[in-house]
C-alpha cells in the first residue's frame, strides 16, 4: 500500500514554525523528518514516523506555494488563496528574509551578480549552510537591491515598505544594499575580525551623513526627501574631501594640530607618549583616506585602509578603547581651533562619521 496522494488543507493555513525553519535552512524533506525525529517529537506526541513524514511534506508544499508570494511580501497581504493571520504573515516574511551572519559576511560588498551566485557552492561548503539556503539568502539580497536601487527616499523606509520587514531587518538590508552598491571590500583577511553588525553600523552612519540623501535632509520639510538618494555616496562631498589634505600637507598646520591635541590630552591618556609619537602618522592616515575617496577603487578599500592606517597601529600600541575615544574626540575638535583651516563643515561631516566608524571597528 503506497500513498499516491496525501494532503491537508486548512481554511486557515497551518504554519509550523519549526518546520518553516528547517525549510528555510534548506533541508530536504527526509533530512527535515530525521531532524524532527531527533528533536523527540515522536515521543512527545505519540505520532509515528509516517505521520511526521506526511506532515513535513504538507508543510513543505505549503511553503513552496507561499514562496512566490514571499518574493513580493505586499502580495502575501493582498492575496486570497491562503488565509493567514497578520501576525503569522509577519513572521513568515521576517523569517524568510532573515539571513545568516556567516553567509552575509561572505557576500557583503560583493556585486550581487551571476558571478557571485556561482561562488555560492564554495560559500556553502565554507560556512556549512546548505546551498539552498545560500541561494535563498543571496536571491533575497539581490531582490531587495533591485527593487530599491533606483528608488528615491529613505533606503530603510523603501525597504520596509516594499518588503514589510521589521525596522531592524530593514536596516540590515539597507546596509547590505549600500555595501553592494559601493562594493566595499570586507573579505580581506585583516577584516575578518569584523562582524556584520560592525559594518552595518558604519553603513548606517555613512548613509546618514555621506550620501546625497544626507545633504537634502531637513526633518521639517518632507518634500526634500524627494531628492533623497541613500544608495550612492555624495560625489561632490568626496571631491571636496581633497581639501582636507592641507591638514597634513601644511607642516605648520599639522604641528599646530598636534600640539593642540597633546595639550588637551596630557595626563588624560594612558598611552600619551605613544599617541604623541604616532600622531602625525595617524593623522596622515586619516586625512589621506579622505583625500583618496574620489577614486572608486579607494572607496572600495575604505575599511581596509581604516584598519591598516588607524586600527592596527593603535592596537599594536595597546590603546584602550576609552583612549581611542578621547583621542578621536580631541582630534576632531582641535581642528576648529586651526585658524588657517577653512573647511570646518566638511571636516565635521567627514570626521563625525569616521569617528563613529573607527570606534566601532576598534576591537579585537
Amino acid at each position: 500500500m503506497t500513498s499516491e496522494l496525501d494532503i491537508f488543507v486548512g481554511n486557515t493555513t497551518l504554519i509550523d514554525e519549526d518546520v518553516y525553519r528547517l525549510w528555510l535552512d534548506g533541508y530536504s524533506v527526509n533530512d527535515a523528518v530525521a531532524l524532527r525525529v531527533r528533536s523527540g517529537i515522536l515521543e512527545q506526541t505519540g505520532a509515528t514516523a509516517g505521520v511526521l513524514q506526511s506532515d513535513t511534506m504538507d508543510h513543505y508544499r505549503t511553503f513552496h506555494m507561499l514562496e512566490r508570494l514571499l518574493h513580493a511580501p505586499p502580495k502575501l497581504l493582498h492575496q486570497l488563496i491562503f488565509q493567514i493571520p497578520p501576525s503569522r504573515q509577519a513572521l513568515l516574511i521576517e523569517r524568510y528574509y532573515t539571513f545568516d551572519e556567516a553567509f552575509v559576511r561572505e557576500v557583503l560588498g560583493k556585486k550581487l551578480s551571476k558571478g557571485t551566485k556561482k561562488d555560492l557552492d564554495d560559500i556553502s561548503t565554507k560556512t556549512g549552510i546548505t546551498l539552498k539556503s545560500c541561494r535563498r539568502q543571496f536571491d533575497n539580497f539581490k531582490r531587495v537591491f533591485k527593487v530599491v536601487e533606483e528608488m528615491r527616499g529613505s533606503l530603510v523606509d523603501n525597504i520596509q515598505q516594499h518588503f514589510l520587514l521589521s525596522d531592524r531587518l530593514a536596516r540590515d538590508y539597507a546596509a547590505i544594499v549600500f555595501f553592494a552598491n559601493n562594493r566595499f571590500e570586507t573579505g580581506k583577511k585583516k577584516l575578518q575580525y569584523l562582524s556584520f553588525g560592525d559594518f552595518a553600523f558604519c553603513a548606517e552612519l555613512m548613509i546618514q551623513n555621506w550620501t546625497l540623501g544626507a545633504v537634502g535632509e531637513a526633518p521639517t520639510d518632507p518634500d526634500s526627501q524627494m531628492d533623497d538618494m541613500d544608495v550612492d555616496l555624495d560625489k561632490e562631498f568626496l571631491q571636496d574631501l581633497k581639501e582636507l589634505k592641507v591638514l597634513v600637507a601644511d607642516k605648520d598646520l599639522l604641528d599646530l594640530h598636534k600640539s593642540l591635541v597633546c595639550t588637551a590630552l596630557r595626563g588624560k591618556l594612558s598611552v600619551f607618549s605613544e599617541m604623541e609619537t604616532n600622531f602625525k602618522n595617524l593623522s596622515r592616515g586619516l586625512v589621506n583616506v579622505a583625500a583618496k575617496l574620489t577614486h572608486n577603487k579607494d572607496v572600495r578599500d575604505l575599511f581596509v585602509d581604516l584598519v591598516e592606517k588607524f586600527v592596527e597601529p593603535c592596537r599594536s600600541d595597546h590603546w584602550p578603547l576609552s583612549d581611542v575615544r578621547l583621542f578621536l574626540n580631541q582630534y576632531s575638535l582641535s581642528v576648529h581651533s586651526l585658524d588657517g583651516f577653512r573647511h570646518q563643515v566638511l571636516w565635521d561631516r567627514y570626521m563625525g562619521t569616521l569617528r563613529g566608524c573607527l570606534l566601532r571597528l576598534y576591537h579585537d
Partner: protein
Amino acid sequence: MPGKLKVKIVAGRHLPVMDRASDLTDAFVEVKFGNTTFKTDVYLKSLNPQWNSEWFKFEVDDEDLQDEPLQITVLDHDTYSANDAIGKVYIDIDPLLYSEAATVISGWFPIYDTIHGIRGEINVVVKVDLFNDLNRFRQSSCGVKFFCTTSIPKCYRAVVIHGFVEELVVNEDPEYQWIDRIRTPRASNEARQRLISLMSGELQRKIGLKVLEMRGNAVVGYLQCFDLEGESGLVVRAIGTACTLDKLSSPAAFLPACNSPSREMKESPFNEDPNPNPHSSGPSTPLKNQTYSFSPSKSYSRQSSSSDTDLSLTPKTGMGSGSAGKEGGPFKALLRQQTQSALEQREFPFLTLTAFPPGLLVHVGGVVSARSVKLLDRIHNPDEPETRDAWWAEIRQEIKSHAKALGCHAVVGYSESTSICEEVCILSASGTAAVLNPRFLQEGTVEGSLEQRLIEENLPVGCGFCHIPYDELNMPFPAHLTYCYNCRKQKVPDVLFTTIDLPTDAVVIGKGCLIQARLCRLKKKAQAEANATAISNLLPFMEYEVHTQLMNKLKLKGMNALFGLRIQVTVGENMLMGLASATGVYLAALPMPGGIQIAGKTPSDGSYEQHISHMQKKINDTIAKNKELYEINPPEVSEEIIGSPIPEPRQRSRLLRSQSESSDEVTELDLSHGKKDAFVLEIDDTDAMEDVHSLLTDVPPPSGFYSCNTEIMPGINNWTSEIQMFTSVRVVRLSSLNLTNQALNKNFNGLCENLLKSLYFKLRSMTPCCLCHVNFTVSLPEDELIQVTVTAVAITFDKNQALQTTKAHVEKSLQRASTDNEDLLQFPLELCSDSLPSHAFSATKEHLESASSNSGTPAAQRAVTVEKASPMGDGNFRNRSAPPCASSTVGVVKMTPLSFIPGAKITKYLGIINMFFIRETTSLREEGGVSGFLHAFIAEVFAMVRAHVAALGGNAVVSYIMKQCVFMENPSKNQAQCLINVSGDAVVFVRESDLEVMSTQQPTVNCQPSCTGEVTT
C-alpha cells in the same frame, strides 16, 4: 420583464503577464448574462488595470435570474491574433433575489482558469432591481430562501414544517459529447462548469416552485448532488425540507430557537404522563388545515380522502386526554394517528433536518435504509427524467414502508446518495424513523406560536425520544426492551441507532466519540447485468458486517447509542467498500451495554483456552479503559426499581434494510443475530481472529482530543472561539498481488486510522479541542486506488469548564438561552447586520489608502531613528523595535461544517453558496505532482468560497460541505483532473463579546470590522 441586473467592473490586480515582450498585460473584461454580452475598454499595459466601467445593465426575466450565473471573463487584448483568455468568474446572483439576504455583491473575486488555477483578482459590483410580479403562472420562485443547514436557522423561527421536497434534472455531459473531441480541455471544462451552474439554478428554481405551492417560504437542509453518470449523462438532484420561517427580528417575537432547550420544558413538572392537550381544540387543528395541505412532490394528484379520517380523529383526541393514565399506550396510538393524518397525505413524510425545534421529535424508532443497484442507460430525453425519478421514488417508498414497520410515520435526518462505477449505480437512502408532533407540520392557528405549543407539551425531559414508538407486543424484529432508566415508565430498547444529531435535551453520561466501521469486499470484474447481480448479492453481507462492527465497537466503548450514522457503500471495478461513521454516546435512558464475550470452538485445548481468556481480558480491559476515558459512570441502579430484571443484554438492531436489484426484488435483512441470548463472538477460524484483533487496533485519540461526526460533542459545552476547518485527501495504491478480503480490510483500516492520527498531530497546537462533524468520503477512482476525503472542523474548548455534569450543562444552556434573549432585546439585529457589510467594504478602501500613504514615512519618525543611531550610543545596534504589524486588507472569512460559530451570534443569512469547479493540468510534475496539484486546487476552492462570501458582505460560511471531490490522474501523460462541488450558507456573525460592547455603545460605530484598528498602528 421583472428584473434589471446591473454590473460594474471596477479594477483588476495581480494579473498574470500575458505579453512576454513587455512583461505586461492589455486586459479587458467581457460581462455575459444569458445571451447578452458587454465589454469594457482595453486597459493597456498593466497588471493592475483600473477599468472603472459604466454600469452594464441586463433586463431579464426572474426565471433567468434564478437559472443563469453571471459570467465574467477577463481577456488579454491581442491586435494580431485571437484574444487570450486569462480566466473567469461565475457569480451566482441568487442571494440578491430575496429581500432579507444580501443587497449588493461587491468585492474582489479570484479570476479562475480551469487549466492555470487562480490568476489574479477582479473587483466587481453587482446589483439587482426586482419589479413586483403578480403573474400567478410564473415559472420563477424568487424569494424562497435556501439553507444548507439541517436545522432551523438560528435567526429564524419555524412556523410550519411542510415536508419533503425533491427534484432532479438531467442533461448530457459535455465531456462526453462528440464535440469534445475537437475542442480544447479548457473549453470542455468551461462548458461543463457552466452547464452545472445552469442546472443547479434551474433545480433550485423548480424546488422553490414546489415550496411556494406548499405555501412555504424556505427550504432547510437543502442538499444538492451531482451524479456524473459518464456516457449516460449528468444528473443534478436535490432534496430538502420545505418550511415556513419567520425572522426573529422584533424582540416580542423572539423565542428560544431549536439550539437551546426551552425553559418552558424545564419549568413544567417532571411528568411522564403524556398529556398532549388539555383543551381538545388543540389537536383538532388538522381538520382545519386540511384545506391547505399540499403534497410535496405531486400536488396535482392530491387526495382528499383523508379528511374523513380526520373527522373521526377528533373525538379520539378527547378520549386520549381524558384517559391520560399511567400508560403511554393510548397516547402513542393517538400520536401515531395524528401524525398519520398530518403526514399520510404527503407522498413521502421525510425531513432532511437532523436537529429539531423543541417538542417536534416525539419518538425515534431507528435507522431505516434502502439501497438499489441500477444499470445506467443513456438518458434519451432530458426533459423527461422519468427513469431516474422512478428509481428514487421506488427507494423512498421502501424507506417509508420500513418506517411504518417500526411504527413510525415520518423519517427524519433523511439523505440520499449514489455510487457509480462504469454503468452500475448504487442508489442509497437512509434516515431515522420517527414519530413527530403533528402540530408543527400543520399551519395551525394564526397565533399558534411555538411557545404556546411548548407550554402545552408535557413530554418527559431528555428521554422521551428514546421510548419505543412501535407496539411492544407486535415488534417488527426481535428486540429486548426494558423500562426507561430515566423515567422508569416507558419501554426503551437497549441500543439506539439514528442518523440525526443528538437532541439538545438528551441526558447523556460522559462524552461521546467517533465510531467507524470499515469494510472491503472483493468482487469479480464483470459487465453490466452480471456485475449488478454480483453487487446485489454482496450488499446484504456488507450491511450485516458493517452493522456487526458498529455494534462491537459501540460496546467496546461502553456506550449504547449512535447518532449521525452515515453508511457509505462505494462500488469500484473489483471491490465494494463500506464505511460507516457515527458518534457513540451513553444515553442515560438506555440500559448499560453488556460486554463482549469470546468463545472458542474447541474448548478442550488448554493453550487455546488460555489464548481465548487472554483475549477476553484484553477486551474487558479496553472497555474499562474506554469508560474511564469517556467519563462514563452511570449511577448504579438497584434491580427492584426496574420493572423486569434484565438478563444479559442482547445484541439487537434498529436497522431495517433492503436491497433491491433492477428486478424490484425486495429482501429484508434481519440483523439481530437470530435469538442469541448474549453477545458472543465466536472465534472459529483465523477470520474471526482478525476481526477481534481489528476491534482492538482502533487507537483512541491522544489526550486533549475528542472527535465526533455530529454538530456538537456530548459532554463538552464550553467552546472557545478558535476554529479550524480543513479538508484532507489521501489516495493509496493497493499492491495488486494476492489481494484478499483480510488484506484489503487491514489496508483500509490502516488508511483511515493513519489519516485520523495525522489530523491529531497536525492540530496538536489547538488542544484541548474537538474534531466535530468529521465527514469521511470513500471513492474508488481506479482499479487499485482508494481515495478517502475528510472534512471536519477543530474547535477549541476551555478545559477547566469541561468537566461539568450533565445537569449543569442543561442549566448553562438555559442560561445562555435567556441571555441570548437579553442581548437581542438590547441590540436590534437589523441595525447591526445591515451596517456591517457596508462598513467592511469602506474599511477595505480606507485601508488601501493608508497603506499607500505609509510610503512616505513622516519625517518625525525618521528623525527619531537618526537620533537612535548616533555614534555615541553604545553599540546595541541590532536590537531595535518590533516587526511592523503587517496589516492585511483581506477580511477573515470563517468556514465550518457546523450550523453555528462558537462564541458568536449569527445575525444574518446571506444566501446559499453552491459552487462547482473543474481543474485540469497537463503539467502534473511541474505543479508538484498529484499532491501539489490537489493541494493548490483545494486551497483555491476555499479562496473562491471566501471571496464570494466576503463579496456578499458576510464573514463566515456555516454548514459548509464538500459534496464531491472527484480526482482522476494519468501520470504517464503528466495529466490530472479534479472536480469539486462545495456548498454552505453565507452568514454574518457577530462575536458575543462584541455584542456586549455594542449594546453599551452606539452600534453603528462599533460595527466596523476589527481589521481597521490595525491600520494606524
